[in-house]
């Protein structure tokens, strides 16, 4: 069986990088002036963001 490992590796990372780039470009612009706290606990800001358990 011919070894396609090298091709698969590069294809994988290429697709991943392209996807990240596409996602970055398509997503709404990030408001850098409303940066979430590094540690949510004790910050007073309710945690937001996606989680697997979320219905959204």
């Amino acid at each position, binding site marked *: *069986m*011919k*070894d*396609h*490992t*090298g091709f*698969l*590796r590069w294809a*994988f990372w290429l*697709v991943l990088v392209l996807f990240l780039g596409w996602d970055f470009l398509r997503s709404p612009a*990030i408001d*850098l002036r409303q*940066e*979430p*706290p*590094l540690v*949510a*606990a*004790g*910050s*007073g*800001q*309710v*945690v937001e963001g996606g*989680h*697997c*358990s*979320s*219905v959204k």
Partner: protein
Amino acid sequence: MKRVPLAAALAAFFILLVWSVSVRQAVLFLVGIGYGAVLAGARFGFTTGWRNLVEQRDPRGVYGQLLLLALAAILAMPLLGHFTELHAALGPPSVSLLVGAFVFGLTMQIADGCGSGTLYKAGLGVPLNMAILPLFAIGSFLGSVQMHDWLSLGQLEPVGLVQAWGLGPALAATLVSLAVIAVVVRVWVGSGKALFEETLGLGRDRAGRAGDDQPRDRRPAVGRGVRLRAVGRQGRAGARHLRSRAEPVLGRCGQRTAPGPVRAAGRDVDHEHRPARGALWVATRKPPSGKPLTPLQWTIGLAAGFVMGYSSRLGFGCNVGAMFSGISTGSVHGWIWLVMAFLGTLIGLRVRRRFAF
């Protein structure tokens, strides 16, 4: 990829995240790297732990998971109880959850990896998992599109034990439940079975010692962090076990010489982490009986990966997102997920044997 270019690329992406997104996301990026490195280096996972329990009556993987859940609950629940900013990983008990968790447990055995397992195996360069990962994402996307249709079949409001009972009772109930599972597992496997590793991996490198064909490494493991592998499923078989596990996906994929991704990944994730390097070094060697995956096995594996992604959305998470996060933060849906996924695994193991994975 060499370590230095890889480290430079990671550092550059970290800086990019800090500059263009947020410090929080950048730090999460580092957390993800560490998470992947630990999982890959320790070969800690859920799929094989369950499989070993069912097929070999080997409880070590499951006991490692139970201990992990208990520790996470001990850490997470007090945080939830004291900081109102934090939320539990709550998912709604629903038809969607029942179906999704069952199907996920079934397909993860065929795909030989749950969500996190697929991720780190793809990072290691295992061809089947590299191919599964994008299909998993597509399936998950499709599941999110159809989520509300599934929820319309019936759902209840999410239940969080910390919110419903308070910190003390919730944590106690969680720990007692985990202990009950441990007792049931212990009874089922019978006496004479090792429940944990002999050591917790804090004194010496057991993977290096246990390997039958790799250099020994008795350097102190100080500073290597929590050794999940030590309480995980690896056991004394060490590298032999790793090789046997790698056989279906590595050996059969014809990586005899395996000069590329697996070994390279070993260098990538192995920052003086000898167990990972040793395990990967063993994994790259083709076992004598290794056979390539057949086209039928490839087809089934890829289909399983796609369905697994779809079901992960229906089940409100995978082993980590639903079970680990849910149970450790007191979500009832995590417990439901555990039961249904284990039932699905029982079927998945039969399918796996049927197609000689």
